[in-house]
């Protein structure tokens, strides 16, 4: 289906832009990262080449982005057509069909309204913005009225968030659970192993497609947007727990737990705006989610020893952000954000915490007419008290050649037993330094 969709997009592009102007650009990027903790293992050693081909006509355009990698550590090569779409331009409307990335929202680095395209967390959240979003096959239409614009999108097939399956950035969940059991000596905690089962993707059928709308404009100095998305949650929620027991002389003793997860349908209503105020720019964004499922703690057994539900509960959920950008000089630009994620109508049996608060501070600037640029990003969780600090120094060696030297520090706080997208503490042994050389053409 995916290949057919991409092939259709390519054919459409060539048909539309028969007398097209063809442009190619891209980059080659060797990238090596080493763990700062002994024994200083290499974490990344790869070459990436990306080629963007654009075929432009007067009222249409075809764009193909082909990325290829060679990973030295696994000695594997792979490629991906990360975007492949056709643009059709009309007087008051644009239509984009094919594999594409969609960006909604005003928040930097934290998806609140920006949840159309799932994230690729193969390298946690440390990839570049254009690498971290997974392009989706979709149809996106924009209609431009005089003071307001409307965007509508339809995604025929769900694609979940991608997590690392191996390597240093695997989100490993607890492999044992201490189960409180009645023993001759009283109540005792019995460690029981956990086996996780991969969630099953929703069936490929029309009824499982995703769609959304966005109304946006510029009025009274505000860039604003209202959005609605009816989609699958990118993160699966607990759907079932099964307790397995073995017959022993002492009777039935639990020895393992099977955990199943499932993707759930949810709806998001969001808003965002930005506006210059005094000497800076104020940004705000919020999203209200319904249909989001949250796993429940504990195991309830019936008289036969079988697990009984419910295993998860549906609760409304809200995320909101307020941010401020302040640019003083070319060598000092600051951007701060406060983000709060809150489960509404909270139930204490829910595995996730009721409130999750994040703060971010980005400091960046350039020297020597942007020949040398620095960037420091600090992202911290106020509740789990863990943090990520990214430091980066870019030297623009010549036109099109950049050397990037950076280091990422992950600071541990309180442990969390459930999945968190910004779980920095989980990877506190992954502090790393890296070097990228990028040749753009």
């Amino acid at each position, binding site marked *: 289906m995916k290949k057919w969709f991409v092939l259709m997009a390519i054919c459409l592009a060539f048909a539309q832009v028969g007398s097209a*102007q063809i442009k190619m*650009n891209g*980059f080659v990027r060797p990238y090596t990262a080493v763990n700062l903790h002994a024994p200083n293992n290499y974490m990344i050693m790869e070459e990436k080449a990306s080629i963007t081909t654009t075929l*432009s*006509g*007067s009222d249409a*355009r075809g764009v193909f982005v082909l990325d290829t990698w060679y990973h030295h550590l696994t000695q594997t090569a792979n490629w991906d057509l990360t975007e492949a779409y056709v*643009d059709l*331009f009309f007087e008051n409307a*644009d239509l984009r069909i094919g594999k594409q*990335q969609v*960006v909604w*929202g005003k928040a930097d680095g934290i998806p609140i309204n920006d949840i159309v395209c799932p994230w690729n967390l193969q390298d946690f959240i440390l990839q*570049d*913005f*254009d690498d971290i*979003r997974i392009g989706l096959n979709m149809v996106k239409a*924009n209609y*431009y009225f005089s003071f307001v*614009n409307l965007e509508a999108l339809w995604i025929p097939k769900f694609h979940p968030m991608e997590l690392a399956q191996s390597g240093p950035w695997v989100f490993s969940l607890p492999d044992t659970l201490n189960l409180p059991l009645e023993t001759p000596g009283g109540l005792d905690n019995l460690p029981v192993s956990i086996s996780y089962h991969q969630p099953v993707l929703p069936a490929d059928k029309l009824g499982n497609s995703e769609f959304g709308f966005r109304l946006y404009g*510029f009025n009274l*100095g505000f*860039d604003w947007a209202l959005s609605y998305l009816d989609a699958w949650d990118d993160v699966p929620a607990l759907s079932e727990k099964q307790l397995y027991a073995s017959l022993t002389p002492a009777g039935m003793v639990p020895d393992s737990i099977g955990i199943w997860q499932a993707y759930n349908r949810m709806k998001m209503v969001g808003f965002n705006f*930005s*506006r*210059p105020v005094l*000497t*800076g*720019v104020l*940004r705000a964004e919020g999203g209200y989610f319904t249909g989001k499922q949250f796993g429940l703690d504990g195991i309830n057994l019936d008289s036969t020893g079988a697990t009984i539900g419910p295993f998860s509960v549906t609760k409304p959920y809200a995320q909101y952000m307020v941010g401020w*950008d*302040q*640019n003083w*000089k*070319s060598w000092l630009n600051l951007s701060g954000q406060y983000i709060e994620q809150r489960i509404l109508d909270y139930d204490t049996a829910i595995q996730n915490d009721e409130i999750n608060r994040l703060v971010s501070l980005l400091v960046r600037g*350039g020297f*020597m*007419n*942007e*020949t040398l640029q620095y960037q420091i990003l600090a992202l911290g969780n106020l509740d789990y008290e863990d943090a990520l600090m990214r430091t980066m120094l870019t030297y*623009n060696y*010549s*036109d*099109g050649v*950049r050397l990037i030297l950076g280091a990422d520090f992950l600071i541990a706080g309180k442990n969390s037993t459930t999945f968190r997208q910004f779980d920095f503490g989980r990877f506190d042994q992954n502090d790393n330094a890296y070097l990228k050389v*990028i040749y*753009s*053409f």
Partner: protein
Amino acid sequence: MYKTKLFLTLSLLSTLIFAETGLEIMERLDNQPTPDNVKATLTMTLVNKRGQTRSRTIQRFQKEYKTGEFSNKSLIFFLEPADERGTGFLQWNYAEAGKDDDQWLYLPALGREKRIAATEKSSEFMGTDFTYDDMGDRDINKYSYTLMGEENLGDEACWKIEALAKDKSQAYQKLIYWISKEKIQPLQMYFFDKRGDQVKTLTFSEYKKIDGFWMAMQMHMVNSRKQHQTSLSMKDVDLKTVQDDNLFTIRLLKRGIQ
């Protein structure tokens, strides 16, 4: 002898009576006919103190509005270097005096436009010695002017005018202009910072009259503090094509020009 004295006195009086003030000359400069529509390709060559060069090429579209809410709108796309390609900058200048511009920057890697505060106009324009402010029109109401005298720059007779910022929010507290008396166009500018030090010198050269409008095909900015300079040359100038209003929108900023 008496007649000569009388002639000199009358000449001096007439000069005093009929001489233009600095403000009047600047108003003449400001009122010079400017093209309603501009499309041009600009190449900026950056030279550091060791003589190393880098270059940026941009395509610029500008539209002037004689009536209504806007003074002008401009849209800039980066063509070179390759790693900046696709970056766009949209600016709306308002007719209302004192009203801040609206500005948006589109970075392809970010995938969305980003609002920029008007105060960022004092930032360097993509690493050049020009600021965002230098790239746009300067509001003459934000400075007070004094005619310092007349000087020749090369073969051209110029008025030398000092401009002092009316408030401290301006990036440059003092400017000195050399305005060509023949063309009523600037030939040179000195820029002074808040401490009164001269930080930049801008020279305009290779003026050409295109479709009835004077256009400086070369501009050269020297940043004496950084010992860095930027040469800006203009080509493919098109003043005839009427730029569509829809060009100066976020839609086109994100989409780019075909």
